[in-house]
C-alpha cells in the first residue's frame, strides 16, 4: 500500500472511532516480531508504552531496509504499521526523502507523532531515519 492509498483509505473514515479501528486492524496484520528481539537494545524510549524495532538490510545495491516492529499498546502498534507502509523495504535514500510527518498530518494522526516522549513513536521514526543514514 502506498501513502496515496493510505490517505484514500483514511479519507472514507469520518469518525475518530473508525480511524482507531482501522489503525488497530493494521497493527494486528503487522509481521510478528521474534520475542528474542524484544530486548533493550531494540527498544525506544517512551514512558507510556513499549516499542521495539529491528532493521535488516537486503544484499541489493542499494540495499532495501526491512523493518520489524512491535508495541504492547495496540494504537502504537497500528501506527508502526502506518509508518512501515511507507518506509518498509525501501532504499535508504527513499526513506530519507519521505516526510512521514506530512503523511501523519494528512491522515489526521499528527498528534501521535509529537516530540513528546510519551509513546515512543517519534523515537522510532528517528531510529528508522538513523538506520537509513548509516
Amino acid at each position, binding site marked *: 500500500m502506498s501513502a496515496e492509498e493510505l490517505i484514500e483509505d483514511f479519507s472514507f473514515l469520518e469518525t475518530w472511532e473508525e480511524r482507531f*479501528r482501522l489503525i488497530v486492524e493494521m497493527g494486528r496484520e503487522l509481521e510478528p516480531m521474534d520475542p528474542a528481539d524484544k530486548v533493550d537494545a531494540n527498544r525506544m524510549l517512551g514512558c507510556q508504552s513499549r516499542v521495539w524495532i529491528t532493521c535488516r538490510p537486503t544484499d541489493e545495491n542499494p540495499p532495501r531496509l526491512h523493518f520489524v516492529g512491535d508495541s*504492547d499498546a*495496540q*494504537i502504537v502498534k497500528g501506527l508502526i504499521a502506518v509508518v512501515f507502509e511507507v518506509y518498509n523495504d525501501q532504499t535508504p535514500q527513499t526513506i530519507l526523502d519521505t516526510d512521514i510527518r506530512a503523511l501523519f498530518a494528512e491522515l489526521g494522526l499528527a498528534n501521535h507523532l509529537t516530540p513528546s516522549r510519551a509513546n515512543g513513536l517519534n523515537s522510532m521514526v528517528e531510529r528508522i531515519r538513523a538506520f537509513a543514514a548509516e
Partner: protein
Amino acid sequence: MKTTTLDRAAALRADFPILARKIGGRRLVYLDNGATSQKPEPVIRTLDDYYRFHNANVHRGAHTLSEEATTLYEQARLHIARFINAPSDTQVIYTSGTTESINLVANTWGRANLGPGDEVLITEMEHHSNIVPWHILRDQLGFTLRYVPVTDDGLLDEDALDDLLTERTKLFSFIHVSNVLGTVNPAAELTARAHAVGAKVLIDGAQSVPHMPVDVQALDADFLVFSGHKMCGPTGIGVLYGKRELLEAMPPFKGGGEMIRDVKMSGSTWADLPHKFEAGTPPIAQAIGLGAAVEYLTGIGMAWVHEHEQELLAYAYPRLGEIEGLRILGPGPTRRSGLISFILDDVHPHDLAAVLDQAGVAVRAGHHCAQPLHDRFGISASARASFYLYNTPEEVDILCAALEKAQDIFAF
C-alpha cells in the same frame, strides 16, 4: 449521596476558565489532577496583576515596586505557613516543587548526617522523586537504603516496620498519599514510630496537601514537601517545610545572591531562614500565585475539598468496579484518596488514554513515575483518574462510558 458538596462543586467550576474548553467538540472532563490541577480565576488574576502592576526583584531595591513585590512575596509565605499550620513563616522554604524540596533535604541534611552504617528508610510506593535522590546520595555516601514493603491490597506493611525501623535508621521518608494506589498512609502514626527510634521524618505531601487538611504540628513532621501546581497554583513553585532546629543546622543547598549575610574574599556567611535556602532571584510571581491558590483553597475549606473528593470516590469506585475486566489498584474505598488507578483486561493503558482523549476525558497513563511499585504488582503501566474539587459525578459517568467504548474498540 448528599447533594451539598456536589452543588457547590458545580458552582466552583465557574472559577476555572479552562473547564469550559471543548476537546474535539466534546466537553473537557479533566481527571488528571494528580499530575497537575487547573487554575482558578483568582490565581490567574493575581499573576496578571503582579506582572501588570508590581513586578520587581524582591529584597533588593529601595523603590516602591520592589517593596510591593517583596510584601506580596512574603505575604504569600505567611498564607502558606498558616495553611499547613507551620509555627513560623520562616520555616516555609520556597523551592521549585516537591522534587527540589526532597533533593534539598538529601543534599544538605543528608550530606551532613548520613554515612556508612546509617540507613534511610523509604517505601515501595514512593514516587521516583523520593527514590532517585536517595539512590544518588547512597552511591556517594555509602549508607543503606531500605524499603517498607507494600501489601497485596496496597497498604504499607506496618508489621515489617518493627524490623525496618532501628537505631540505624536516620531518616524515614514516605509518601503521605500514594500517587498510584491512592493509599492514605497513617502519617502521624508512622512519624511517631520513626521518632521512637530517633529517626527524622520527611513526608511527601504532593498528593495530600492539595486534597485534605494537613497540619505539620499535628503530624510532628520534621520535613513536609509539596508542589504548588497540584493545588491550584502555578508550576515552578513548591515548598519545603522543616523544623526550625533542623533547618538552622543545615548548610545551604545552592550558593548565590540573596542567601548570604556577608561575602568576603576569604568566605561567606549565610542569611537567616528562610533566605539561606533561596539563592538567586526566586520564582516571585509563582510564589505570589501559590499564595493566592492557598487563599482560594482556604476560602473553600480543605475539609470540604476532602469530603467532596471522598463523595466522588464513593460514587466512582463501585461504578468502575462494575466494568467487566477492570481491576482497581490499591486499597478499598475507605483508606484512599480521590484517585483511582486501574488496568483493563486486554487494553493497554496508553490505548485507553488515547480513546478517552477522543471522548474529551483527560487521564494519566503510564507508570506514573513509580516503576518499582508497578514492578511490585507485576504490571508495566496503569491508567489513573484523579479528582479535584471541581469534578462531578456526571464526569465519572462520562469516564465509564468512554471506558466501555475503549473495550469495544480493542476487543478481539
